[in-house]
């Protein structure tokens, strides 16, 4: 039996959701892959586009309703009714971003820069960009191109490639 290691050569991530945790999951995995010397490509589509839209990317929210894992500080379950009050989602999200900052997690714009600094590539989905009536200049400067899913799949070739959907 062969024990030869066959390390990953390419990681392709698809980020389709725009909540704080979904976008960060994609960014952490993408940056982690780049740091490991793995070729990395990230495709942002649908609401995930918020993660690369200049106006939205540093103000992402986490859902305070419909999120059973949401807790108050101290670990008490977060009442759904409270989560629906005006301003609560915004305040909770801002608190969460502050905690992430304290742990050394970069804001989204800086995270994207870190990924491209190591050779990672960021793409926007053409269909979603058209749907949300966005233009290239609305997107982060770190975005290489606006492409179709077909073009993205073409980039995902190779034996040791994984596609990850978040």
């Amino acid at each position, binding site marked *: 039996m062969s024990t030869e290691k066959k390390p990953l050569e390419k990681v392709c991530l698809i980020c389709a959701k725009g909540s704080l945790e979904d976008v960060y999951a994609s960014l952490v995995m993408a940056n982690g892959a780049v*740091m490991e010397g793995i070729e990395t490509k990230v495709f942002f589509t649908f609401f995930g586009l918020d993660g690369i839209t200049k106006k939205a990317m540093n103000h992402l929210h986490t859902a305070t309703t419909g999120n059973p894992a949401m807790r108050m500080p101290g670990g008490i379950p977060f009442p759904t009714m409270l989560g629906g009050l005006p301003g609560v989602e915004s305040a909770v999200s801002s608190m969460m971003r502050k905690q992430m900052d304290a742990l050394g997690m970069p804001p989204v714009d800086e995270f994207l820069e*870190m990924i491209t600094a190591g050779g990672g590539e960021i793409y926007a989905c053409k269909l979603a960009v058209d749907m949300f009536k966005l233009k290239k200049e609305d997107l982060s400067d770190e975005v290489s191109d606006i492409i179709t899913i077909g073009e993205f799949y073409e980039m995902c070739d190779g034996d040791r490639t994984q596609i990850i959907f978040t």
Partner: protein
Amino acid sequence: MSVKTIAGVSVNVSEDGYLDDMNQWNEEIAKEIATEIGIELTPKHFEVINYLREKTLAKEALTIRSVGKSGIVDVKQLYVLFPKGPLKFSSKIAGIPKPTSCI
């Protein structure tokens, strides 16, 4: 843990080849580990390596982000100095433990 002779010195290394004791490190060891990885060390490399060693002694967690804000290099330059392993390879060459950070 195993014993390995690097640059004529017998040192304890982890399974991945990281020095167990950063005090066993010297510049000759750094050069030999770097050559094994395929990196030729320049004075700029040593600035980064010394920074990593200082921060490790101070028990500060290291990330490519913190190195990028050190004033020595930015993240892009760090990748140029240590291709495909900005934190992993630099830590190995610096004789400090394998990084445990995700960023």
